[in-house]
């Protein structure tokens, strides 16, 4: 887990026309809080958990996106705990890049949105 990496939910992606008609690519994301410090230390940095309700909308540049992660609801030890999410990352062991597996690109059109 590199420094300054955070987890976020993507709302949508968009392109912005800059100078000379260059397009720059961005994403609108809700960024979650940094991980709970106590849990992190208790677990030797293997449990990254944060509140599921505190997040801040923000625009980021697309190249800053590193990977797709799984955010799971954190099981509670006591009922009083707030709702939190924790992170499961994909390991290098069955990494997509090496095995030639890629998500399908030709996903069928969805709902009533259509491409032009």
């Amino acid at each position, binding site marked *: 887990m590199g*420094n*300054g*990496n*955070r*987890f976020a*939910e*993507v*709302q949508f*992606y*968009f*392109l912005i026309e800059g100078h000379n008609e260059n*397009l720059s*690519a961005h994403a*609108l*994301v809700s*960024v979650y809080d*940094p991980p709970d410090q106590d849990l*992190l230390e208790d677990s*030797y940095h*293997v*449990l990254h958990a944060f509140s599921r309700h505190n997040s801040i*909308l*923000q*625009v*980021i540049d697309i*190249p*800053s*996106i*590193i*990977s*797709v992660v*799984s955010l*799971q*609801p*954190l*099981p509670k*030890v006591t009922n009083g705990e707030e709702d939190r999410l924790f992170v*499961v*990352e*994909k*390991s290098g*062991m*069955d*990494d997509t*890049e*090496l095995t030639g*597996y*890629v*998500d*399908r*690109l*030709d*996903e069928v*059109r*969805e*709902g009533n*949105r*259509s*491409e*032009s």
Partner: protein
Amino acid sequence: MKEFLLQCGSEDEDAPANGSVYTNPDSDGEEIEAIATAIQTRASLLERLDVAPMPLQSDDLEESGHAATAVPPISRIENVAISQKLIHEIQSATLDKDKLDADMLERLRNPPTEPVDISHPDTRLSLDLFMACSNASESTYTAVRDSVMRRFPDVGMLSYYSSKKLISNISGVDSIVDDMCINSCMAFVGPWAELQACPECSEPRYDIEKLAHSGKEVPRQQACTIPLGPQLQALRRTHKGATALLYRDRKLKETIENFASLPVGDRIYDDIFCGSDFRQFAEKVGLTQNDITVSFSLDGAQLYQNKKSDTWIAIWMVNDYDPTTRYKLKHVLPAIVIPGPNKPKNLDSFLFRSFYHLSALQRENDGTGIRMWDAAQEAIVLSRIAFIFGTADALGLTELDGRVGHHGALGCRMGCDMKGRHKPRSGHYCAAHLCPNDYSVEDCKHPDYDFQKKPTGPSPEIYTANLTKVVTSLDQGDYEYNRKITGIGKPSILSGLHPGLLLSIPKCFTVDLMHLLFLNLGDLLISLWRGQLRCDPTDSKENWDWAVLKDDVWTTHGRLVAEATPYFPSSFHRPPRNPAEKISSGYKATEFNLYIFGLGPAFFRTVLPKKYWKNFCKLVHGVRIIIQRSITGHQIREAHSYLTQFVEEFEHIYYQRRVDRLHFCRPSLHTLLHTAPECSRTGPGTYVSQFRMERAIGDFGRDIRQPSNIFGNLCQIALRRAQINALKTMCPELDPDSRSTLPKHSYECGSNFVLLQPRDRYRTKLTGETLNIIDDKFDISRVRRWGRLRLPNGQVARSLFSESGRANTRVSRNVKASFCLSVCPISSLTFCIRSNWAMEIDLQKFSFIF
């Protein structure tokens, strides 16, 4: 004679004469092993075990590293003797004596130098159709051909047979078959070549009726080998193919350069060429860009569930490719198909043909290499074929490396000097590092293992000495005893290869992380926490306060795991099924991985007592590092620190030095101590993991269409795959994948990021907070929204925009992103600094290692 003398020099050129490396963390530590010390320790152990001295022939470094070159006499033990005979034949292999037909031999020695011409429209049409039908049946091909010919009678389309013949001719790839026992005991090769019946089960080799009627010798079953030479020659026939093979040379040079200038901790290990063994091997051999390095992988496959169909398949991997290419199916070369129905009793006899051929290739032209047409250099080059790693699943590996189970006194798979301990009146050694209290077994009372010490890696010298001991056993009883204390059952078939072109035995074997971490450890932890380990009469499950996964807790826990599925993005492959229901029905390695090392820290937190949970988290920390594709020297050290702490603590809190709990100390725990050092020796374990091999191998099995003759069909599929792979390399225009495959309406936004549909047809008016943020930043109130983004690592990140309104979707819209410091809140900055500091303190303990 009791003295145990090993005169071999240190394998590492730059290793110091004594064990002083431990005090010098800045030196090239990962390559330095206090090998002399290790050998002495091991020697004294063996001495105590009453192993007779066995001086090595240490003519020179190269020779001493290879078991077979020491040429021990043929063993009195039958199965050892058979392996030795096969190995001797392999050692003196030549292409002339190889079972190649005249055309193939001629072509191997005088490779065609002209480009492949498939420009004739009829030829091209036939080839295209043949390849399009590669997953269909012959009748599909014929039906399509007939339709085309009906409409265009002038087209000279080739028949299925002629197309097949053409592809065989163009590619130069063909198969060799060997007769084998109908019960798949053995193949009729080497010392068995002339036999008429199986020496194991006495089943006749030939069809008796046909033999009686017509006198024809019709074999009842055959195994199929696809020789490596022609497949390798095909790789260089095009400019593109020849250039792709240059990766290894480039990467190795870069690595050597980087490693020379970087402190050990900052080195990046991101391929097998970063491993110290490969680097040393390349230097010793003087590996050039014309040479090719291969690895071999063997796997048993159940082709049909609930059916007896034990088929064994082996493949070659060409290491010289970039890793993003290396593991893809079309670059994996089929090697052997061994039909079932049973597990072979002598697997060596089936592997014989492949290694005989490789050995012959290695020895061709006095060991200077085989001739290949290199389209990039536009010249015939001499290419040596070096063997690097042999991998196999648990069953296959003991056949390939000739070792036996883990339960001997020196049971470590990596051959280190860790000596096990057994219970009174039991010959079964357990991998307990700590000495039990109130222990009566004199032989095993050695002091606690020194966890601070670097575990010694595989050593050819020790291996050779031990192997000789096994080979020279006087009788069966002596053999069984020697096998037990050395962990070696027979010489590895690989020892027949050219000693200069083989990463020596046992260095060419490594830990298979997939089995170790996901299957063995997964099984141990879950059995432990479910209270399912054996409980000795003197122990009581009442005292097992870690055994919490029982009854309702286990059921609820299992359901929780199953309910995690929708939160796993689709790129995570198979999410874990409910372990309470499915853990004993073929729970997959990937499932164990996501369950234990992914969900584990959060899911076990609520059920395990805290000290066991914290101990488990140390394991997860270490494991998550060593299964990465790219690992720094610092991280290797960090992983080793955590894994060592985990193992030591595990023994303290579970086994508690109790004799009646010695069986908790399974060999997999000890092997964990080797995983981090193995990273620096062989590169990250993920590049040699059986995981990738099994995927490739499983794919052959899936291609099977005709259950009536599964095995014959499988041979045909493997051959066709080999030929088509070769053809695609030689004529890239035939490979549809080599053209860009971006779908319509996508947008490449640089650095390998691609925006994918769905997208808005028109710009959409933004509202609310979204509007504020985007308007603030870009002065814009309408945007055209895109739904998905493909990342450079191949994953596709979706978004709320593309996922909302979709049912049954696995959430794939959460990402990890790097935030520049300006948006990084102060609190998380302090966290980074604090955690780094804490880590340094922890690691100093182990700074001698790397």
